[in-house]
């Protein structure tokens, strides 16, 4: 019912800064879409244009087959949760949650029923008569969420709703939010700069950079097949490793040379047979060996970080650094040699100039 369609959305600040640049995006009904990107990438501006708090210079916004580009927020059937919570300090929790319903002139009994229902959902039942100043940060956040969902909007917008909570609270509330939104089945757009949040919550993630969407897909697609070097480096902790190599041909097979060592290439490199190429591989997709092995690359251990569940090893291949996730029983010592075996089907290839992925399949 409430599919959101953005066509050619452009927002220009101060006549020159293109905060959002020609964005096209379609969000399906009931989908949970995350806008992910570093600060200043335009994700919040894009959301504010969907909310009607900013107006685009070019492009159209439609919600549920209705062009809302020129409509004010109150005519768009949206609710928004703000990063600062924006809970009204002069109203009690009940009045905060009831605020939007009262603006719609809904009957008193109905308001009471819906406010209490929403408060129950976010576990604010006992606090309805309190003022925001008497609540903790986490509770204020719940008020903001209750105030938004009580409207039963066609679209729920959330602008970094967890970023002001401390780490543990954030982890708990994240799971709760996922359950809540799953039950509501509202089309949801969620803005965050935290890639873990994006991965855990989104049906799909739109990764933004400098006002453009650089990749849009399911969390696993984006993690597994980053469309370019930026996405690979932004998603995942540690970020994807990138090594530059050159394409060589020996015995009729393609190989990629890293310094004086050769990496076997599983398939064609998008038709490339020579030149530089960027190899991408994630830390958990490299097997570390303490002794030389067939097809393994020699490297030197630089730093070993025990992280409890695994070791994070920083290794050097020639003068290029990469991070490897090794089992805790791996005998890693600084300055010791080690051998690396990347999983062949997890290798990703990128153009060193443009940073775009090369389809090697």
């Amino acid at each position, binding site marked *: 019912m409430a599919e959101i369609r953005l066509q050619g959305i452009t927002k220009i600040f101060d006549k020159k800064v293109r905060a959002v640049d020609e964005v096209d995006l379609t969000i399906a009904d009931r989908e949970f879409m995350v806008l992910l990107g570093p600060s200043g990438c335009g994700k919040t501006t894009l959301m504010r244009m969907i909310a009607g708090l900013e107006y685009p210079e070019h492009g159209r916004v439609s919600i549920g087959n209705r062009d809302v580009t020129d409509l004010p927020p109150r005519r768009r059937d949206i609710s928004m949760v703000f990063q600062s919570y*924006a809970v009204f300090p*002069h109203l009690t929790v009940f009045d905060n949650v009831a605020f939007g319903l009262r603006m719609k002139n809904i009957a008193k009994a109905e308001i009471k029923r819906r406010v209490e229902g929403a408060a129950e959902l976010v576990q604010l039942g006992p606090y309805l008569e309190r003022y925001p100043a008497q609540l903790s940060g986490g509770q204020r956040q719940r008020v903001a969420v209750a105030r938004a969902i009580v409207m039963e909007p066609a679209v729920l917008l959330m602008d970094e709703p967890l970023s002001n909570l401390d780490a543990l609270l954030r982890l708990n509330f994240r799971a709760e939010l996922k359950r809540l939104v799953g039950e509501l089945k509202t089309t949801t757009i969620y803005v965050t700069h935290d890639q873990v949040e994006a991965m855990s919550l989104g049906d799909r993630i739109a990764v933004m950079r400098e006002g453009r969407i650089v990749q849009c897909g399911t969390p696993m697609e984006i993690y597994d097949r980053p469309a370019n070097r930026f996405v690979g480096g932004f998603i995942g902790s540690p970020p994807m490793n990138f090594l530059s190599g050159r394409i060589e041909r020996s015995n009729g097979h393609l190989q990629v040379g890293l310094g004086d060592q050769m990496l076997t290439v599983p398939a064609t490199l998008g038709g490339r047979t020579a030149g530089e190429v960027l190899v991408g591989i994630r830390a958990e997709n490299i097997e570390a060996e303490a002794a030389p092995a067939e097809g393994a690359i020699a490297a030197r251990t630089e730093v070993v970080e025990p992280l409890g569940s695994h070791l994070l090893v920083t290794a050097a291949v020639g003068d290029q650094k990469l991070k490897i996730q090794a089992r805790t029983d791996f005998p890693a010592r600084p300055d010791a040699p080690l051998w690396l075996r990347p999983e062949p089907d997890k290798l990703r290839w990128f153009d060193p100039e443009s940073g775009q992925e090369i389809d090697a399949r």
Partner: protein
Amino acid sequence: MTSIARDLPAAPRVDREAVAARQARARRRMLGRGLLYAAAVLLALWVLFPIYLITITAFSPRDAVYDYPKQLIPGTLSAETMRFFVDAEGVLGALWNSVLVAVVTLIFSTLIGAPAGYALARFAFRGRDAFRLIVLSTRAFPIVILSIPLAVSFIEWGIYDTIWSVALMHTALALPFTVLITSSIFISVPRDLEEAALTLGCTPATAFVKVVLPLALPGLAAASIFTFVLSWNEVFAAVILTLRERTLPALVLAALNQSPVPFRLAAGWFMLAPSLIFIFVIRRYLLGLWGRVSR
């Protein structure tokens, strides 16, 4: 250095020089603090002592005014001096005029100044910083030069020697403060709250009424009091723009030379008291205006 450190015994030694330095630092801090407090007390006395003298004399019997040496603690309290002042001819009428002028000034300056303050706080428009400066610079324009042509205009309009002419003049004088104070008040109401109201079904107008206004109200009340005091105390324009419809300060100033000392002291106290009370009430907001935003 490392080799010497290794040769030393493990327990840290108390370095005499370090102890001396610490003591010297503590002494300097004490001395600095003492001087600061002394200066503060001196300044406070400088202002408060005359106020105190005026107050006790205003509430002493009329004869006590001429007592010498002055008693710092009044022997008998009496409303006699105050009554003499209040019963004097024209005082009640002038008092009423003062209240009227102040109220009209307050209404005018809020109606004109608060929207300007809101615009300064919320909208990024061309020349905003210049506007902020120019608003203040009107205060630098000498009232003397402004008053005479204004008096002529007011005579032409037929409002000379009425409370309206004084109220208009006071509005002009109060506006810079009203604009800047209200803008700092509106800035302290987060933008997000207004936007949240917009997403919850409000028009910009209802968002202002339902969210911004309630939150700004204490500050706006303080700004009004400030305007009230400004008008209450203003004497120069009031003297030039009125002849018979004097405000209290204008009347007191005009009568000062021919009046007995008890009258002067009672008048002084009467002018002083509301200002003191109001300034005390709103000082939190004045600090906010001066850049120490309380939040």
